[in-house]
């Protein structure tokens, strides 16, 4: 290192290259650290930690914004658990998470395996497949989706070829949620890019050795590719399922602003929005929010616990 050679020019003797040693230096570093961090610290206290505590308090009150919050104990929670619309919103959200996340990740992994092969145009395909992830959340695409899944539009016509005569999915309570699922799957590009980055890091020698031992493509996938990209798979499962729990815009725009028809797309966030901002039941909405936080924390904990069993980290292999 060039630095070590320069250091003796200073009178400090055995001191490290950077003059931070000493109590005064360390105090100055602490001060600098917290000064640089101050926007984040302010943001964390004012916009994250403080609101979380306030929200926890509201969850045990009746609060309509105009009169001060009134303590009601567990009332919000007992009403919530018995509320049929809340139960419906849990059902809709779980269905959405459980159907959309695996299908999206399966497609993302499949296409990533395809694109991992070096071929002409590979970069262009990668870019094109990623684009929906950037525009998928916009109101514009929501409108397009609404049109594509209406009566006599492309989806309706295609399903008729296969003898499925249910009409457009948008007005149909049994199908409309799957239009939202399709919108989520269409945005497979973001997890695909992460899979691709993971695939690039798998050492090529492993495949060559396996091929020499006579392992076919399927065996190579199960015994090499999958274990080697399991950390990336874990990351994608975690992120995508947490995102899926929080879906709102597509339900509000694609179906209708009541998240209907017949509450068929009443995802959790949509009901929370209605309770908080349409009915000004801030206490009830806060109770809903905290219930979701606990649910997401549980899912996260289970995923982290399960990764010991199926996620393979390179350090462990050595």
């Amino acid at each position: 290192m060039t630095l070590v050679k320069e250091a003796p020019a200073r009178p400090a003797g055995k001191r490290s290259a950077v003059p931070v040693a000493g109590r005064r230096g360390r105090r100055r570093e602490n001060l600098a650290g917290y000064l640089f961090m101050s926007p984040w610290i302010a943001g964390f206290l004012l916009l994250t930690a403080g609101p979380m505590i306030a929200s926890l308090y509201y969850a045990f009150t009746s609060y309509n914004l105009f009169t001060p919050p009134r303590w009601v104990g567990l009332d919000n929670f007992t009403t919530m658990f018995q509320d049929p619309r809340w139960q419906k919103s849990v059902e809709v959200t779980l269905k959405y998470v459980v159907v959309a996340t695996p299908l999206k990740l399966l497609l993302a992994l499949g296409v990533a395996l395809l694109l991992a092969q070096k071929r002409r145009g590979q970069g262009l395909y990668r870019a094109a497949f990623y684009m929906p992830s950037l525009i998928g959340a916009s109101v514009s695409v929501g409108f397009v989706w609404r049109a594509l899944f209406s009566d006599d539009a492309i989806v309706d016509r295609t399903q008729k070829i296969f003898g499925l005569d249910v009409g457009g999915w948008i007005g149909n309570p049994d199908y409309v949620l799957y239009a939202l699922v399709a919108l989520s799957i269409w945005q497979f590009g973001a997890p695909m890019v992460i899979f691709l980055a993971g695939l690039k890091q798998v050492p090529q020698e492993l495949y060559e050795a396996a091929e020499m031992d006579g392992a076919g493509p399927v065996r190579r996938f199960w015994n090499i590719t999958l274990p080697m990209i399991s950390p990336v798979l874990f990351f994608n499962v975690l992120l995508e399922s947490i995102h899926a729990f929080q879906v709102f815009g597509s339900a509000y725009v694609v179906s209708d602003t009541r998240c209907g028809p017949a509450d068929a797309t009443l995802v959790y966030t949509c009901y929370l929005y209605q309770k908080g901002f349409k009915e000004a039941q801030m206490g009830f909405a806060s109770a809903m929010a905290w219930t979701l936080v606990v649910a997401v924390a549980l899912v996260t904990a289970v995923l982290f616990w399960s990764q010991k069993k199926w996620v393979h980290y390179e350090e462990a292999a050595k």
Partner: protein
Amino acid sequence: MTTATSPVARTANERRRGGSIAWHVGALAVLAVVLYPVIWVLGASFKPSKDIVASIDLLPTEPVWANFSGLADGISGISISSFFMNSLTYAVLAVAGVVLSSSLTAYAFAKIRFAGRNLLFTLMIGTLLLPYHVLLIPQYVLFRKLELIDTLVPLVAGKFLAVEAFFVFLMVQFMRGLPRELDEAARLDGCGHLRIYWSIVLPLCRPALITSAIFTFINAWNDFMGPLIYLNTPSKYTVSLGLMMFRDQEGISDYGSMIAMSLVALVPVIAFFMAFQRYLIDGMATSGLK
């Protein structure tokens, strides 16, 4: 290596060519599904309103401009350009806030050794997984008490306070990858942290800054829930809310204009993507790996 004339090599070559055709067929099939909605909206905005949903043709047989000229009338007395200006203001402020505050915070995490750094870093990563719902109501109550409802402040305040942990994380990862020798040499020359941050680290971080800036711009441009909750006056509406006004207030005759405005609203995002796709995709990829 076998020579090209040997029969073994020829079958291998043929097999490779066959694989190549299958690869391109597969990739093109996915491409068709991915691009269909985008081409559809492009074609639909040039069709007469009544043909948009039900016509089989992807592109119009006789393109009409009526949908775009209809946009000039605005909606409910508000001109379309007002929505676009509001979205632009929001997005530009968001970009300035995120780039400035996230890079300052990231510098502290990556380059300064201070007490409690690891604990704060863990806290920051923790906020990445926190569902934003739990903040929705109390933040609204807070901004309402401060009488900031119906302004852009609630939408951009968090951006100036580095609340978007993803971008802080992205920049920390990038700064940690910079050679230590550079800032150590600068410190020996007597540079303070502010000088090092501004003159050495920031210029070297350009790729990470560009990635964060573009993502922030696109997220703000697409943002729907934030404006829906905080903006009440139609003249302050962003493009997302303007589009919803079209849907809620106009009859089927203006359906074409609604689709045309949807297309116009997508143009900045797609243009940014085409210009910077490498930054965006590489930024996404590294976030998943480390």
